[in-house]
């Protein structure tokens, strides 16, 4: 029986590797989108202009309050039916990235609020513009306080990427590889244990990276 367990991996290594590659690609691209858009939205949310603040708030509430799976159904079949020739991987990465961006924005915003108001006032009175204040004074400090919440978000995003493969997008990601192999071999537990191992590699790497960042930059208390 334990031999069959390893056979499931060795016999289907190519399928698992392809699935792992697809998941890795999804995760990396979504991460970039989430960080860029998330930072932008966070900047909107703490901007002095109330309209920008509102815009940021609408973004966060929209993407944070809709289940990711529902978002996928809107972004893929919905857009395609509306005549937009979007591919499954683009729809998937965009959905996961924009969804995670809402959480990233909230984490960054909480970090910004941890920087005392006095510093911002001091910076402004010294002649820095608001964007300069944000870039030079506030965000570097905010970033340090939000490393661990951001890390949790990234790990959650890696796990959420499995929703893409399980959905109508029919992407051949790591979870899908496990399911296809399960349906071929009927070895349910080994198929998914090996898929889980693949996710553990990704989340493990993310954890190590976050630890590194924390030891280098985090605020020590």
């Amino acid at each position, binding site marked *: 029986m334990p031999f069959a367990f390893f056979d499931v991996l060795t016999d289907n290594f190519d399928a698992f590797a392809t699935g792992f590659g697809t998941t890795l690609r999804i995760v990396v691209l979504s991460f970039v989108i989430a960080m860029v858009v998330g930072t932008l939205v966070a900047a909107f949310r703490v901007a002095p202009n109330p309209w920008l603040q509102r815009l940021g708030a609408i973004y966060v509430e929209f993407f944070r309050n809709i289940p990711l799976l529902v978002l996928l159904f809107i972004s893929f*079949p919905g857009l395609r039916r509306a005549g937009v020739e979007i591919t499954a991987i683009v729809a998937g990465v965009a959905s996961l990235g924009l969804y995670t961006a809402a959480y990233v924005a909230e984490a960054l915003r909480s970090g910004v609020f941890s920087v005392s108001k006095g510093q911002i006032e001091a910076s402004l009175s010294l002649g820095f513009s608001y964007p300069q204040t944000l870039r030079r004074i506030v965000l570097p400090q905010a970033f340090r306080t939000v490393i661990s919440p951001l890390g949790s978000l990234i790990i959650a995003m890696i796990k959420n990427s499995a929703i893409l493969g399980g959905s109508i997008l*029919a992407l051949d990601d790591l979870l899908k590889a496990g*399911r*296809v192999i399960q*349906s071929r071999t*009927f070895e349910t537990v080994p198929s998914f244990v090996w898929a889980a191992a693949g996710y553990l590699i990704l989340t493990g790497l993310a954890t190590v990276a976050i630890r590194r960042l924390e030891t280098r930059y985090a605020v020590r208390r």
Partner: protein
Amino acid sequence: MKTTRWLAILALALGLVLAGCGEDDEESGGAQEESTPAAEVEQFEPGTPLGDIQQEGTITIGVKYDVPPFGFNNPQSGTVEGFDVDLGRAIAERLGVEPEFIEAISDNRIPFLQDGTADVILSTMTINEERVEQIAFSDPYFIAKGRILHKKDDTEITGVDALAGKSVCTALGSTYEATLKEQAPEAKLKLVDSYSECLESLQNGSVDAVSTDDVILTGMIIQDDTLELVGEELTQEPYGAGIRTENTELLEFVNETFEAYKTDGRYDTAFEKWIGQYTGAQPEPPTISVDEAVELVKQSAG
């Protein structure tokens, strides 16, 4: 402010009560149907698989919820209906118990039997060599043919040979994954959970074709007449009821039930109701055995 809150709570409570009533109605409706059995029900010893089912009073049957005309959730009545469902009812009726239908998708139906979630699986399941090693099958109750469905205005797909480079949708865990890999190795396979997702993907243009059993595809054409079947038959797909391998008593019981069902006219009535009236086909209850069915699948897969 206070009154609105009270009204909201009242409305919620009322909703819950009404929802509860709805369920009761359904149950009592089922019981009424069941209280007029055609013949005396044979009682089995408690402790045997059939006796246990009788003692429990329900038999759990896994069916498709989204594959008309075999098993689908009727939005009007809120119950699951179809050819497979009628067969399931016949089994339950002969045992003198209530059928409890649960959704079994292609991907989870064999695990459902193995872990005891379902007693019987009636979900358009083709009898093939791999599956016979995992579970036991009843004698075939239907023989479907593998076909390809495409959009009428797509002239490029003329049959299985023209699928190279095209994306083709089928269900994860179905026999078509292997069939397509063999007959159309250059086609890009899109594997999804259910055929309703294949229909959606074909309609929104993210796949070029859907391949599965002709009857399932006919169900899609009934829903969307811009689609049509194209090309030759890919395979022959004899459907059988799935039962846990150890449960030979239930297997025998199901086979006897099907035998009676095929000969006493119920099969023909169900066929006409679910398939014949749409396709004009005549009922042809299969007479082959499980072994012959396995052979048939092997031959037709080439």
